[in-house]
């Protein structure tokens, strides 16, 4: 019976996502991959946040609450469809008149192979990764048993600081929702959400890359960025790194569209994904600042336009209100090990600047490790050199800015960390690269597009019409 309740939970997540997709993007034309991506990822993000807020109101979100959310989502979705407010599908076959292309089957099958591997590793086993057990499973179980208001003893007891008491709660709440549906913290069936998260990551990366490349190269870039061995194993481990990568991919997709279109739906979706990323892992918060800066930069000159101001207000409202509630709730939670804000002192920064050489050398060694990462990181300098003409297009500069700021942020954290640097990098660097992978995919796609030619025209066309040119 536990399997049935898990399946119902997945259905509810998808219903919530589908209703949110229709409500936000309305009648805009969208590719099937983008619609599926939004149904999955918005479902995960919105349901998880609703459960957190319900729990903050003092109620343990049990099966009844989740079923009610599903019912409301179903009614909303039916109402939106009744009023004709649903995206018009841009069928992929339009690109090449009913021809999928035999060559495209190769990367497509490889991606499906990767997904199957993650499915087997997720559902076939219980959670074994140490961080996943003591940090994320612990939080999921705490939220299964206790409401977040009054704050459970766990969050204020320094004895449990090994599980990082102040870490964001979105990823464990998604798992906790599965526990709630089963009415027991059954670890193995609850892992059904892991392949769903991985599928969301793949679809969002593909949808973002598809803005810049035709189908076949887009599939190949998605394969390279979403199916490295390390990423797939981590996707099945149950840590919060792949969910963060998924939400980052969503934020990047709609940031890219925002740079071109300035659509209100793009602003709302970019805001939501940025917020979800910040609620998934601590790294998501500084990334939210970077994303917000790059969101604002291209439209500073257009601030007099009312539509732009409304979109900006929507974007920042989502971030400020959403994160504001979280920060108010977590006031007073002890953080003894990783108080990085407290280490932002010139003495520490300049005192540790000598670590830079070790950090860069370790990064270089890790990124060229092809068994873990395939050719993703190796391809970037090569393709950037060959496709240098991409720098004529402004969004290439913005993507590079995002990539360098993201990498720079992690280098900075390694400079100020109180932990042993070698040990910390050994344990964390690969996981941080998972967060950067979607940005790397887009940088790769931007340069590959310039090699094929017509990157800017294609980008504008896809953003305007939702349909890829033949």
């Amino acid at each position, binding site marked *: 019976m536990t399997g049935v309740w898990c399946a119902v939970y997945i259905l509810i997540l998808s219903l919530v996502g589908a209703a949110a997709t229709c409500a936000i993007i309305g009648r805009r034309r969208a590719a099937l991959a983008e619609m599926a991506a939004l149904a999955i990822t918005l479902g995960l993000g919105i349901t998880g946040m609703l459960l957190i807020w319900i729990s903050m109101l003092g109620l343990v979100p049990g099966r009844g609450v989740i079923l009610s959310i599903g019912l409301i989502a179903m009614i909303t979705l039916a109402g939106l469809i009744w009023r004709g407010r649903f995206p018009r599908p841009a069928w992929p076959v339009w690109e090449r008149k009913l021809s999928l292309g035999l060559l495209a089957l190769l990367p497509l099958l490889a991606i499906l192979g990767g997904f199957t591997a993650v499915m087997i*590793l997720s559902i076939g086993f219980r959670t074994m990764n140490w961080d996943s057990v003591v940090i994320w499973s*612990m939080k999921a179980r705490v939220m299964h048993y206790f409401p977040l208001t009054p704050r459970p003893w766990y969050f204020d007891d320094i004895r449990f600081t*090994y599980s990082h008491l102040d870490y964001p709660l979105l990823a464990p709440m998604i798992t906790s929702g599965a526990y709630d549906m089963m009415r027991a913290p059954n670890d193995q069936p609850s892992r059904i959400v892991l392949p769903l998260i991985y599928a969301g990551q793949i679809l969002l990366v593909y949808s973002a890359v598809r803005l810049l490349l035709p189908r076949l190269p887009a599939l190949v870039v998605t394969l390279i960025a979403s199916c490295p061995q390390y990423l797939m194993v981590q996707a099945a481990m149950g840590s919060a790194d792949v969910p963060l990568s998924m939400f980052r991919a969503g934020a990047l997709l709609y940031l890219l569209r925002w740079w071109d279109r300035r659509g209100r739906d793009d602003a709302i979706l970019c805001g939501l994904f940025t917020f979800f990323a910040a609620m998934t892992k601590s790294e998501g918060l500084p990334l939210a600042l970077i994303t917000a800066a790059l969101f604002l930069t291209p439209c500073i000159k257009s601030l007099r336009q009312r539509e732009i101001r409304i979109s900006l207000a929507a974007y920042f409202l989502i971030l400020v209100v959403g994160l504001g509630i979280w920060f108010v709730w977590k006031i007073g939670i002890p953080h003894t090990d990783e108080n990085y804000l407290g280490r932002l002192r010139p003495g520490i920064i300049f005192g540790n600047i000598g670590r830079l050489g070790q950090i860069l050398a370790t990064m270089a060694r890790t990124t060229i490790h092809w068994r873990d990462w395939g050719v993703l990181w190796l391809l970037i300098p090569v393709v950037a050199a060959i496709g240098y003409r991409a720098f004529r297009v402004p969004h290439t500069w913005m993507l590079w800015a995002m990539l360098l700021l993201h990498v720079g942020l992690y280098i900075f954290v390694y400079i100020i960390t109180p932990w042993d640097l070698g040990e910390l990098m050994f344990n964390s660097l690969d996981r941080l690269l998972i967060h950067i992978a979607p940005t790397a995919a887009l940088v790769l796609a931007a340069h590959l597009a310039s090699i094929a030619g017509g990157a800017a025209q294609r980008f504008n066309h896809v953003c305007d019409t939702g349909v890829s040119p033949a």
Partner: protein
Amino acid sequence: LYWLGWVLLALAGVVVCALPFCANDANLLLRSWATGHAGDFSEGYKDMEQTWKTLPPGADVALVYRNFSPDLEAHKRFVVQFTHVGALLLLPRRAYAGYDGIVLNDGKSIIEGHFDPTLRWLMERHIGMAFYSRMNAQGGLDMLGVGLPREPRPEELDRTPLAESPGSNTVFGGRP
């Protein structure tokens, strides 16, 4: 050449997709799945679940370690895994493995915390049980859970539940 390039990249992708099945982690997972015998950590995890199932439900638990050395890797590893996974599996009961304000990040800090509370300390926190893991003289591990008396005599309050008159304690479980 253009198409050949894409085909080669796609083939590289296929190889990359096959790699999880060769990686150490996944290899362990797949072997475990095929043979029904999980790896070290998972096996220990299952044992812990069995241990906790022998405890009566409801009461908070103190996890006490005796005769463990902060210098021995095996001791530190056991203590940290038993404490951290125990805290997870014991929920919604609260697990204590250190005095107030003590950080339990690793096996060394847990052992060096010398947590062996008195009955008074346990009762002040409404802890219903103390679970002892003890290295015996033969280098083996004794485990036993001790239920706390509801109305202890005043002279018992400043003793640890296991130290005195073990015959009068309610002992649960007990696994070599």
